């Protein structure tokens, strides 16, 4: 047939180029993920070993009077943790990036480095340092707050202040990341555009909202989705500062600590890998939902916008 002559030979090179990524990703990401989801459908059997139980673990986690409150508590705390980052860390990061990209600020490299430094510190160190700073016994927070007439509290020890305090510590640590991403996007804006706007009489305020912000919208989306994924996987800081028990009285318990505690066990509580895998499954669904909303609700609209432009 004439068509046969036109058909190209099998594109071997594409397979070869894709292979390393596909193999490594499958081996170290896809397979463990699928296996973890499989594990969540099993439960320890009375006769030893594990037996298939279908979605019973999920049912137990979502409806059982002892499991459900823990899941809801962790979920609620996780949302609060996320809101702190979304509406405090990211706007402040954007503000810092705008200041650092403007012409008026001097010593930009120093500020940029200082603000980014906590990001590369270990969680253990950050947790430890902040515990010391906030310690009612040895900490400097008491003297510092006294300047503003605020009475010191055991911030990490009270049920209603522990989570906000922890969120703010995390914001302090990670503000450098959105700042850097926004900064990179702002610097990439062509000067001609800004100059043209200035010639047309745009104020700095107008310049930002009418020119800069629309142009960095894709970065806003990326930062938001990174914050979402990072926060719903968060574990390290709570673990370092408040232990896997999310103390006091579960008030700082996130999905990550709930999972860790269940999977590995604590003190006299033995680990329960199947229920742990179930919690991991719920986390997977939540994060997947968030990412899908981003992909279809946000990124597509942006793409359409770009095509129209």
């Amino acid at each position, binding site marked *: 047939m004439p068509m046969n002559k036109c058909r190209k030979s099998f594109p071997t090179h594409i397979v070869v180029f894709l292979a390393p990524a596909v193999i490594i990703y499958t081996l170290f990401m896809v397979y463990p993920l699928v296996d973890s989801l499989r594990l969540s459908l099993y439960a320890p059997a009375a006769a030893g070993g594990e037996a298939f139980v279908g979605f019973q673990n999920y049912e137990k986690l979502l409806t059982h009077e002892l499991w459900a409150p823990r899941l809801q508590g962790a979920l609620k705390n996780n949302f609060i943790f996320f809101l702190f980052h979304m509406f405090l860390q990211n706007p402040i990061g954007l503000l810092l990036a705008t200041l650092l990209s403007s012409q008026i600020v001097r010593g930009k490299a120093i500020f940029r480095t200082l603000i980014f430094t906590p990001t590369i510190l270990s969680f253990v160190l950050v947790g430890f340092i902040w515990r010391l700073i906030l*310690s009612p016994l040895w900490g400097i927070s008491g003297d510092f707050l006294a300047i503003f007439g605020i009475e010191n509290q*055991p911030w990490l*020890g009270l049920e209603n202040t522990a989570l906000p305090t922890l969120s703010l510590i995390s914001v302090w640590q990670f503000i450098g990341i959105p700042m850097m991403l926004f900064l990179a996007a702002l610097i990439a804006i062509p000067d001609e555009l800004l100059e043209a706007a200035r010639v047309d009489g745009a104020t700095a305020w107008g310049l930002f909202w009418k020119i800069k912000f629309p142009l960095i919208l894709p970065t806003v989306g990326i930062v938001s989705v990174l914050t979402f994924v990072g926060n719903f996987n968060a574990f390290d800081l709570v673990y370092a500062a408040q232990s896997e028990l999310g103390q006091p009285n579960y008030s700082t318990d996130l999905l990550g600590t709930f999972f860790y505690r269940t999977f*590995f066990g604590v003190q006299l*509580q033995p680990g329960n890998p199947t229920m742990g895998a179930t919690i991991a499954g719920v986390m997977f669904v939540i994060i997947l939902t968030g990412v899908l909303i981003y992909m279809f609700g946000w990124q597509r609209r942006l793409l359409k916008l770009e095509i129209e432009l």
Partner: protein
Amino acid sequence: MKKMAALLIVLSLVLSLSVVIAQDKVTLTIESWRNDDLVIWEDVIIPAFNAQYPDIEVLFSPVGDPAQYNAQLAARLEAGTAGDLITCRPFDLSLQQFNDGYLASLNDLPGMENFGDVAKSAWVTDDGSDVFCVPMASVIHGFFYNADIFAELGLEEPATEAEFLALLQAVKDDGNYEPLAMGTNDQWEAATMGYQNIGPNYWHGEEGRLGLIDGTVKYNEDGFLQAFEALARWTPYMPTGYQALTYPDSQNLFTLGLAAVYPTGSWEIGVFNSQADFAMGIFPPPLPEGAMDCYISDHTDIAMGLNAASPNQEAARTFLEWMTSQEFAELYTNQLPGFFTLSNHEIAVEDPIAAEFLSWRGECNSTIRSAYQILSRGEPNNELDLWRLSAAVLNGDKTPQEAADEVQAGLDAWYVPGG
């Protein structure tokens, strides 16, 4: 060519020699949560063992954070990378490890006859047919006090709860010291040093503990509830910001001479002897109003087991056998004052505070922590509930009745007495 051959021969000789040396020396690794004891193991206990068995090297390898021991050990056992000798937590955790085949049975270990049934009770199967750890020590709960502060304020060791609270009030009124050195941040401190420390006097030791197991006694009634109520009465005397104070914070509060009384247990003696430069005294948990008999928490705390997958079974058994000896019992009890041997050997306790702790065994009835045997097998975990809710009671976030009801509800969720 000849030179080359000679070199090869020499090389292969050196290599084979080193292989022989490596085979001769066996290295045993001990898994432990007691990082405080590292120096004593390295400088005293292991050299004493090597004096008799020079061919067995022993490496004491504790985890950095004692609270992480169980999780880390479980992961290492599962991965097959755990050490040869495993320090055993009491009751269910070790029992589970034995049932899972990670710990070897030690029924035929020579020297096990040096331990009575009570000593072994924390490390035997439910039917008593297998013993799987060599009992090392128990710890006794009580209260340390700063004798200098007591002398300065003219205070005396309290015998009853009323006297105890009056004493705390006197320290508070004076205003120079914190009455109690205690924090609730770590949660376990509230349960272990608070609830389980004073509790046995209210629930009558073994009577209450065994009652919980056979279902005749509840956490939200009588003794167990009264213990929560007694704990709640400590709240006014807790140090500033106690909700965020950790266990090391309370230790430092006491050893720096900033607090009068420290509710804790005998395991602190070693650390305090080296860190506190004031005279210390101890008193047993104060008695409730009208009570005649005293009860103490004399908790079987620590033992040593054999990793069933260890390649050095013989050497490890040699070490465990040595651990049943009079020599080890003496070394351990006196080098680690506050850890009392569980063996039947006659030991002279040198440290005066340790000796006083031990003397309570003769005056009071011993019991162990209520949640350790059987009751922590299910979910939610009884011990963890006690941690969380004891802290919540001291923080004022829960009333004693609410806390007690929640503990009992957690237990009722899975535990069927006698089932």
